[in-house]
Structures are given as structure tokens and as C-alpha cells.
């Protein structure tokens, strides 16, 4: 596989996971530091399904998505009824929990990792998956469920008075985001062929937040563009990997200073048909807003 193919596959996978973060953070206003851990759940489940149970590519991917979905209910059910801050804390706990389990479990290969997953993922797989995800997330945004997410984000009390079940709406957004992370994780497992626990730590989760924030919390197009831009950039700068964190910090600072609504604000790319974009959560307070109830 050529270097370019590798970059394209990786970029596509990151873009898929970032779409989930857009639904969760951009639309619903929840901050999760566990998205990479849902990727891990998806990746390991798909990898194990393939390696230990001999399932094929597509069935294994499905196993990964379902596993991530189940995990989202386990994390969401107790924490989403609390204030948003406690939900974020629960996702951090989940992140550490997943990493610890993967490190000690012999079944997942421990800290050495899971080795020998089939090398199947190709560019066209990722392209199809990404196209489908972009379409589905766009539909979600424009549906009554997407509007429910936005109303819960902007005024939870009012949303409930209009008949929106705030808890169920948050759980739905969280599960959708987890499913997309699980899908991304599965594709990742079949691309690399091996998995190790340190690929999916909390720093990786926070990178996804940075991407969506950079692209503009109110814009699906922004989440897509930023994830593609930043991943491609990082892959080009592979040799200077240790500068990654510093670069991300700089991106946040510069965005906050010069364009607090993110690159795209609430602007959406449209193809002829009218598209009503919802304005972004009132950034720059948006990051702090997640902590507010």
C-alpha cells in the first residue's frame, strides 16, 4: 500500500469519527473525552471477531459498531441525567477504564496489543463509509431528532416543555457518536492489522474535540474540513510527531483569538437545495458552556 493510500484511509477514518463528535458536541453541546475509547471498543471488537471467531470484514465491522453502541449505553445511562460536567468526567473515567482493561487483558493481547488482524481496509471502503456517514449525519441534523439535540443544547428547560425527552436525546446523540467511532475503529483495525492500547488514549479523544472546534461547532462541513485538513497535515509532518500536541494547542489559541466561532462558523456547503444551518453554540463560551448546566 502506498503512502498516499495510507494517508487517505487514515484521513477518512478520522473524518468519520469527527462526524460523531460534531453530533455530540456541535449539535448537542456535550463534551466527551472518550471518543477514542469508543474507537478502541470498535477496533478491538472487530479485530477479535475476525481473529478469534473468524468473522469476515463486514460482519466484524458490525460487531465493532454494536459493541461501541452497547458501551455508550453503559456510560450514558448513569451519567447523562447529571449535569453536563459529570457526563464529561464519566467519559474520562471510561477512557482510563478502557485503556487499563486493554493493558491487562490477555484476551486483547495486553500492552503488546492485538496482532494479526486481516489487512483488508482499502481507500474505496473508507470512501463509501465516509460518504454514507456524511449523508446520514446531514439527514440527522435536519430531522426532528437533530432539532431536539439543538434545543437541548440551547435551552434544556424549554426543550422539555415542548415535549423533548432531554435524557433520551442526549443518549441518542452519544450513541450515534459512539457508533461512528466504533465504525472508524473497525476500519482502523482492518487497515493497520494490529492494535495496541496506547493508540486510543484521552489525548487522541481531545484531538477530535480540537478538530470539531477548529472547524466550527455549528458546522458539519467545518467538522469534515477540519478533520481532513488536520489529519492530512499531521501525516505529512509524521517525522515531527512530538510537535503534534503543541501544534494543536496553538490551533486552539489562534482559533479562540481570531475566529471564536471556528473556521466555518455555522456555514454549510449546500448542493442547490436550501439548507438551514443552525448557528454555532455561542462560542467562545461554548467550551465553557459545556460545563454549565
Amino acid at each position: 500500500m502506498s503512502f498516499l493510500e495510507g494517508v487517505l484511509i487514515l484521513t477518512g477514518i478520522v473524518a468519520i469519527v469527527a462526524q460523531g463528535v460534531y453530533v455530540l458536541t456541535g449539535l448537542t453541546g456535550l463534551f466527551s473525552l472518550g471518543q477514542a475509547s469508543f474507537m478502541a471498543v470498535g477496533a478491538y471488537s472487530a479485530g477479535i471477531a475476525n481473529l478469534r471467531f473468524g468473522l469476515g470484514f463486514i460482519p466484524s465491522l458490525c460487531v465493532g459498531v454494536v459493541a461501541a453502541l452497547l458501551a455508550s449505553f453503559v456510560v450514558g445511562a448513569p451519567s447523562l441525567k447529571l449535569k453536563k460536567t459529570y457526563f464529561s468526567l464519566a467519559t474520562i473515567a471510561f477512557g482510563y477504564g478502557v485503556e487499563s482493561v486493554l493493558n491487562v487483558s490477555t484476551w486483547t493481547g495486553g500492552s503488546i496489543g492485538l496482532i494479526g488482524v486481516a489487512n483488508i481496509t482499502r481507500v474505496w471502503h473508507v470512501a463509501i463509509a465516509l460518504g454514507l456517514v456524511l449523508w446520514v449525519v446531514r439527514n440527522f441534523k435536519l430531522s426532528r431528532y437533530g432539532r431536539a439535540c439543538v434545543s437541548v443544547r440551547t435551552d434544556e428547560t424549554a426543550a422539555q416543555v415542548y415535549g423533548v425527552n432531554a435524557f433520551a436525546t442526549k443518549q441518542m446523540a452519544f450513541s450515534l457518536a459512539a457508533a461512528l467511532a466504533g465504525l472508524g475503529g473497525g476500519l482502523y483495525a482492518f487497515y493497520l492489522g494490529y492494535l495496541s492500547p496506547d493508540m486510543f488514549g484521552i489525548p487522541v479523544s481531545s484531538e477530535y474535540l480540537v478538530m470539531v472546534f477548529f472547524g466550527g461547532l455549528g458546522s458539519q462541513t467545518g467538522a469534515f474540513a477540519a478533520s481532513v485538513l488536520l489529519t492530512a497535515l499531521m501525516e505529512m509532518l509524521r517525522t515531527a510527531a512530538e510537535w503534534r500536541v503543541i501544534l494543536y494547542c496553538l490551533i486552539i489559541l489562534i482559533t479562540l483569538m481570531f475566529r471564536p466561532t471556528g473556521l466555518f462558523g455555522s456555514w454549510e456547503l449546500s448542493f442547490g437545495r436550501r439548507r438551514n444551518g443552525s448557528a454555532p453554540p455561542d462560542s467562545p463560551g461554548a467550551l465553557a458552556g459545556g460545563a454549565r448546566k
Partner: protein
Amino acid sequence: MKAAPVLVVDNVSKAFGGVRAVDSLCMDLNKGEVLGLIGPNGAGKTTVLNLISSVTRIDSGDIRINGTSTRNLPPHGVARLGIARTFQEIHLFKGLTVLENAKAAGHLSVRYSLFDGLASLPRSRREEAKIEHTCMDILRMFGLHGDAGKDASSLPYGRQKLLEIVKALVTEPSILLLDEPAAGLNTEESNELRDLVKEAQKRFSLSIIVIEHTMEFIASISDRVVVMNFGKKLVEGTWDEVRCDPEVLRCYLGED
């Protein structure tokens, strides 16, 4: 024989710390009537609306909507029983346009599954077209259709207040609770609002509870008035009956 009331507040109490905000309150709302709820500041009027819409939980007593107790229902469950309300302060969804605000409020009137929505199946497109039509229709009734595409928070205050009522109506309620709808409006706007509320009441056959401090508003719209003071019901009757009541005069004007 008199029909059963659509809303029954049955011996309801609510305390915040040591303050008895609502104290053993009993009142009914009959079908198709406008009930004015008045009283001095801090009398517990807004708390009553919060209790009815389950935004605040009741301590004791019961509230029944068409016979169904709301004691253990969350706010969204009460909304499903056909209750809609506005708030004293503006509660618009910031960043959304006027039309999007209305559509978001119409959550319960749009019926399709998550799968329909994710795949944009015909059912979801049909329902979306329908709710957009309904919203535009009610926006037109309130003279807001020209602002449909504008950012809701860019509207002047009076029109934001109207939009709040539009949003409540989009939920297709049978009971409407209005918390100081005319506060901050001038006389002309207030009269316009009164006429619109009356029109909406007739068109959607609503039963309404309205809290207001503008007595002209209450006098001209209410079929019946309940006066509250210190969480208790002071008197109840038509406007002409209660306005001469010595107890009411005392609580508004003080001891003589």
C-alpha cells in the same frame, strides 16, 4: 350538568426551604375558559405554572389533566398530555431562525422514527413539509411570517414574546399557560397580543391560564380570576366580583 374540568389543581403545596411558595391550593380550569391568575409579587403564581408543567415537582397534593395525574411525570411527559406554556423571561433557542425555533417546538407534532430521519425516507420528508406548513401558518397568524428566515434573537423584544406564543401553539396544545405575556409591552402591543390570544383560543379551542400584572389585560380576557397571596388562594370569581373584594384590595393596597 357541568362538564368535568380539564385541569384540576387538588390541594397542592410546594415549599422552597422554609418558604411555602404554594400552600394547599385548589383550583380548576374548565374547558374553553380563560382563567386569570393574579396576585402581588411573590404570591406563587409562577410556581403554580411550574408545578402544572412539572418543571418543579409538587410536595403534596395532586394535579390532574383530563383525569391523568401528573405527579410522577417529567416535563416532557406533561407536554404529551397537551399542555403548552410560555415563560416569564424569553426562552428562545438562540442561534436558530424564527422558523427553526417554531419547528423545534413542534417536536411532538412531527411523527417519524429515527431511522426515517437518518435515511431521509419519504415519511420524514412528508412530515417535515407538514410541520413547516403548520409553523408558517401560525407565524402568519401572528404576523411573523416575514421574519421566518431571521435569527430569532435578532427580533425586537415584543416580537420575541409573540414567537414564544407561536412556539407554544405549534405543539398543538389543549391547555395553554401564559406567564406574563404582556410584560414589557406597550398598551398598543398589549392590546394586539390580547386579540391574538383570543383568536388563537377560538381557533384551537384552548383552555388558558394567564398570569398578568396589567389589570386591563386580565379584565378584558378572563372569564374567571383567581387571586393568590402568600401561596394561598385569596378569592375566586369573575373580574367584577374580585376587584371589589375587600381582601383583594387589602393585599394590593395594604392595610387601611
